[in-house]
C-alpha cells in the first residue's frame, strides 16, 4: 500500500481530482467544524443572500461536536460524527466552493452527485478514534454560533490529521467497494 497523501487546504480542483476512494491522507492546515445546527444556519444565510461567516472556497468541513476541553488543551476529544445528518445541507455548500468533508458513514445520492459535479471529496475519519485525532489538533477558535456550544463552528489548525477517502469526484465509493472486496457470499 502506498504511503499516505498529504493535503494542505485550501484545496484546488486539481488536488481533489488526484484523490481516489481508498487513499489514506494526512491533512495539515485549517479545518472548519460543523454539525447539523450550524449547517442549517449556513444554508439559511445562503437562502437569504447574506454573507457566510467564513469563505468556503477550497475548504474542508469536519463533522464533529467535541467534548469539553481541559485547561491547557486546545480541544477535548474530537472524533467524527455521523454524516447523513448533514446530507440535506452539504450540496448547497459544495455549490459555494466547499471541496472536502470529513465524517463517518454513508452519504446520500444527492451529495455524491454534487461532489462529482463540482469536484469535491468525502473522507472518513475513524469513528471513535477521538482521542488520537485530538492529538493532531494544535489550535481551535470559535468563528461563529458560539451559542450552539459543541455545535458552534470552529476553525481548527491540524497537523497530520488522518483520514481515508470514501467518495472521490469520479463517483467511486469505498463503503461499496470495500464491502464488495471482502464480502464472502
Amino acid at each position: 500500500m502506498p504511503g499516505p497523501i498529504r493535503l494542505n487546504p485550501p484545496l484546488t480542483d486539481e488536488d481533489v481530482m488526484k484523490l481516489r476512494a481508498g487513499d489514506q491522507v494526512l491533512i495539515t492546515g485549517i479545518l472548519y467544524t460543523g454539525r447539523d445546527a450550524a449547517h442549517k444556519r449556513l444554508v439559511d444565510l445562503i437562502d437569504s443572500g447574506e454573507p457566510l461567516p467564513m469563505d468556503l472556497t477550497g475548504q474542508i468541513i469536519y463533522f464533529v461536536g467535541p467534548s469539553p476541553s481541559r485547561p491547557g488543551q486546545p480541544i477535548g476529544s474530537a472524533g467524527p460524527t455521523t454524516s447523513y445528518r448533514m446530507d440535506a445541507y452539504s450540496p448547497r455548500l459544495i455549490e459555494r466552493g466547499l471541496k472536502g468533508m470529513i465524517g463517518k458513514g454513508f452519504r446520500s445520492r444527492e451529495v455524491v452527485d454534487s461532489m462529482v459535479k463540482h469536484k469535491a471529496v468525502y473522507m472518513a475519519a475513524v469513528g471513535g478514534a477521538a482521542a488520537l485525532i485530538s492529538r493532531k489538533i494544535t489550535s481551535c477558535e470559535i468563528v461563529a454560533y458560539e451559542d450552539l456550544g459543541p455545535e458552534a463552528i470552529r476553525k481548527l489548525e491540524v497537523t497530520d490529521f488522518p483520514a481515508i477517502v470514501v467518495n472521490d469526484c469520479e463517483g467511486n465509493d469505498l463503503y461499496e467497494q470495500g464491502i464488495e472486496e471482502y464480502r464472502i457470499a
Partner: protein
Amino acid sequence: MGARIHNLNIKLWIREGRENDAFRFPRSEKPLTGFSRQITNQNNAMREIESGEITEAVRKMSIKAAYMLGHDVMEALEENLKKEISPTGREVLRQLVENARIAEEGLFPMCQDTGFAVIFVELGQDVHVAGGDLNQAIHEGVRQGYSEGFLRKSVCDPFTRKNTGDNTPAVIHIKIIPGDRIKLTLAGKGGGSENMSRVMMLKPSDGKTGIMDYVVQRVSESGPNPCPPTIIGVGIGGTFEKAALLAKEALLRPLGEPSPDPELAAMEEEILERINRLGIGPGGLGGKTTSMAVHVKMHPCHIASLPIAVNINCHAHRHREMIL
C-alpha cells in the same frame, strides 16, 4: 382458606419462576452471585447504604468508563488486528488500539460522544437507602462525573433539542433481588450505534432462522454508521419492551464469554460468523472484523408473538460495575 390457597399459588409461581430462571440463566448470569452469604439475612436487619455512596460510585464509573476501555474490548481489538486481512481495516484497528492508550492517559475521553448514562441497579431487598432519593443520588453522580471528567453533555429535549446541560436525566433500570448489597452497572451509550438499534415483532413461524436473518440484516443495513467493529446485543422473546431490555443487558456480559445456554451460545457463534462474512469491516471501510461479539439473551414470550431486539454497541464499549 382462600388466603392460604392464594399464598400457596404465589409460592408455587415464585418457585417455578426461579426454576425457569435457573434453566435459562445459570449461575454466572444471575445477579449478585458471589454474595450468597448475604442472601440469607437471619436477623432480618436492613443494611444501610448512604445515598451519597451511590452518587460517588456513579460519579467514578462515569469518568472511568469514558477514559478506560475494558480489558476485554482491548484484547478483542488487538486479537482482530492480528487477524484482519484488509490493509485499511488494519489501519482502523491500529488507530483504535492507539486511541484507547491515549485515552487511558486521562486527558481525552476515548470518544467525544461520551454517551447517555444508562444505569442498571440490582437492589438487594435487605438494603435501606438512607439520606435521600436513590434516583436523585444516581442523577447527581452522573451530573458530577460528566462535569468533573470533562465529558460531553449529550442529553436534550426531544422537541426543542435544547441540551439539559449536565447529561441528566440518566435512564435507570431497577431490579429488586435478594441480598443486602447494591450492584450498580453503568453503560455510557453512544448515539451513533444506538440509532442503528431496532425492536421487531417477528411472526412465531419465522423461528430461529428468521431471528438470525433479522440480526444479520440489521447489521448489514447499519454499515459504517455504528462505528464497527461493534458488539451486538440481541434480546429474544418477552414482550415489546422486555426484548429491548434483554438486548441491552446482553451487552453487559464480558466480551468473549458465551451464553451459558448452549443453544444460545451456538446461535451467537453462528450469527457472528455470518456478520463477519458481510465484508463491512473496521470503520465500515471493508474487511472481516465487522463485529467482535454477539450476545444473546432470551425470555419466554406470548404464544402469538416473537419479539426480537437488536442493540448495537460501538467499540467504545463503556461499561463499569460496582458493588456496594
